């Protein structure tokens, strides 16, 4: 299970402060998106990353941004934001606006930003896992030193195509890191009720893939483990399978209004003690690396930044009706009309 936080981080004070700022930014961004959803500004399905911020932060600071490839499922806002996607474009996409990352055609689940190495943003549970391995295949094919972070949820770990992909990743030695963001719930079904063996990390072993389970609630430890694994994969040009334990503080999606159907308030309260942001805050204060006032100022700045992002995104128009036919193909339109 979860390892203890390291006594003293190898990371600089500035770096830790940056992680703190980034995780708070994601938290505020996601909370604002929940508000926008309740206001009817965002529709459809939307899944926030609240509670899991340390995980993406640790991993995405362990790669070469823009060089390495990243792909994930529909809980994808944080990955895009950390990789450097314009946050206004991300929020505009959530609201289906013209200036969104996909011009309002993708929505919350389909954020793409290949210039920053981000290949989506996918809605079919487990369906993008072979695509991630395919990105790794391309890196191997071209004899590049890229690695791929291929994120999936614990629910996706049961999909057949994930096992097919693990077999091929092992067979072809693809430089792909399969990262299970195990937040303990496949929508409303608890890990123990959906996995014959809840130790999902073992599922890489039959395919000859180095596999382990680590904690994802402490950003310092997360970064350390992620860096170790990314470096190993880049060096050895082989796949890796990691189960990262975390907890989804929010519901599955914005439409999940009754979490008590599948977990108790007591359980939630207990798990929220593991809040990665509070944890880093305690660490910074305990080690006298930064004062309470500085952290509060960061909080206020990020909150204000998110408000500005929201306002800028909300000022954007909806897509033009004639854009509906754009980009189905690179060079033609389909037959027009109803």
């Amino acid at each position, binding site marked *: 299970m979860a390892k203890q936080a390291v006594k003293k981080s190898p990371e600089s004070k500035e770096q830790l402060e940056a992680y703190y700022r980034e995780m708070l930014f994601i938290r505020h961004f996601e909370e604002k998106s929940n508000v926008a959803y309740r206001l009817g500004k965002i529709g459809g399905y939307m899944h926030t990353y609240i509670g899991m911020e340390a995980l993406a932060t640790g991993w995405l600071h362990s790669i070469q941004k823009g060089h390495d*490839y990243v*792909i994930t499922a529909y809980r994808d806002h944080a990955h895009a934001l950390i990789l450097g996607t314009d946050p206004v474009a991300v929020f505009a996409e959530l609201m289906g606006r013209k200036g969104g*990352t*996909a*011009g309002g*055609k*993708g929505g919350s689940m*389909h954020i*793409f*930003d*290949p*210039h920053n190495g981000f*290949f*989506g*943003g*996918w809605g*079919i549970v487990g*369906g*993008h*896992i*072979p*695509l*991630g*391995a*395919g*990105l*790794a*295949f*391309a*890196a*191997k*094919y*071209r004899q590049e030193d890229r690695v791929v972070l291929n994120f999936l949820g614990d629910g996706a770990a049961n999909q*057949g*195509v994930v096992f*097919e*992909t693990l*077999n*091929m990743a092992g*067979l*072809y*030695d693809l430089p792909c890191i399969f990262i299970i963001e195990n937040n303990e719930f496949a929508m409303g079904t608890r890990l123990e009720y959906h996995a014959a063996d809840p130790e999902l990390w073992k599922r890489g072993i039959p395919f000859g893939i180095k596999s382990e389970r680590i904690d994802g609630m402490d950003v310092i430890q997360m970064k350390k483990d992620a860096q170790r694994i990314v470096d190993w994969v880049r060096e050895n040009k082989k796949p890796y399978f990691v189960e990262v334990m975390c907890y989804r503080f929010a519901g599955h999606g914005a439409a999940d209004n009754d979490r008590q159907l599948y977990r108790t308030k007591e359980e939630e309260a207990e798990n929220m003690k593991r809040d990665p942001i509070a944890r880093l805050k305690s660490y910074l204060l305990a080690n006298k690396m930064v004062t309470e006032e500085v952290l509060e100022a960061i909080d206020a700045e990020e909150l204000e930044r998110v408000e500005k992002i929201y306002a800028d995104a909300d000022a954007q128009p909806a897509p033009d009706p004639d854009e509906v036919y*754009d*980009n*189905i*193909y*690179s*060079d*033609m339109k*389909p*037959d027009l009309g109803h």
Partner: protein
Amino acid sequence: MANSIEMTYREALTKSMQEEMDKNADVFLMGEDIGRYQGTFKVTRGLVEKYGARDNDFNPRVVDTPITEAGFAGIATGAAMAGLRPIVEFMTMSFSILALDQIINHTAKIHYMSNGVVKCPIVFRGPGGAAKQLSAQHSHSMEGWFAHVPGLKVVAPATPADAYGMLKTAVEDDNPVIFYENPGLYSIKGMVPDDPHYYVPFGKAVIAKEGKDISLIGYSRMTHVNLAAAELLAKDGIDAEVVDVRSLLPLDTETIFASVAKTHRALVSYDDWRSGGFGAEIAARISEECFDDLDSPVGRVGGLNVPMPYARNLELLCIPDENDVVKAVRKLL
């Protein structure tokens, strides 16, 4: 004009792929038993030797896969997202059913969902339709299913020259292409231009035989069936025009409608199950757009609406032939 060489449909495909692989190092093949085994229908014959293994047993240009259609369709799609140009072989199009989530929900939608920032240049090719006594699970015509999906292009060449030139166009297209090969065509021979740059455009139907009394509209194997039917009809003084559609998506309605405007009658034929097959779409378009030109309702000939039976006599009953076409024509005249 380049010289032409006589070769089979199968040889035309092999030559086309090899030339595209030589032209562009990003082009590679992936599929079950396409390497060491040379392909179930031998379309990839000789290619694994030509492009040798690089490290250990890994041959990046001719990739033998496990029997795992969804997995390799997805891996090839991911590779295409990164800029490679995979040609994926399905041992038969019937097996593409296992990969439909990848192809329909992922491959076909990447470009639109990313609003054009991600391209997916990939070809899925393989035999579709009945071969000989392969029975219910190995005889699917999948082209109509795929031609239903925005984001895919679907082509079904009938001749060795078109197979050669359309596969080149498919490989160089920046969009996902379904390349449908009827297994009954692999051994037919024809003249093929000896020109590595012979590209046959998509969305252009051709008149395989001119006529004035009725338009027989089909693609792939049915073009040959329609030509045979036209010969039978000629004996009775009926001059049928044969339209080889070649490309289902995009569909060249201009050529089809012009033919109907000339002959005033249309019969659409296809191997797929009659009900809901792609020919029904062609028939609907003609009915919508050519109503004033038509002297009779648009006719259709399709496969029988049953899972393909094994017994040879029953199988032949299910697959439309020239006699079925002739019978349908007589009803329209």
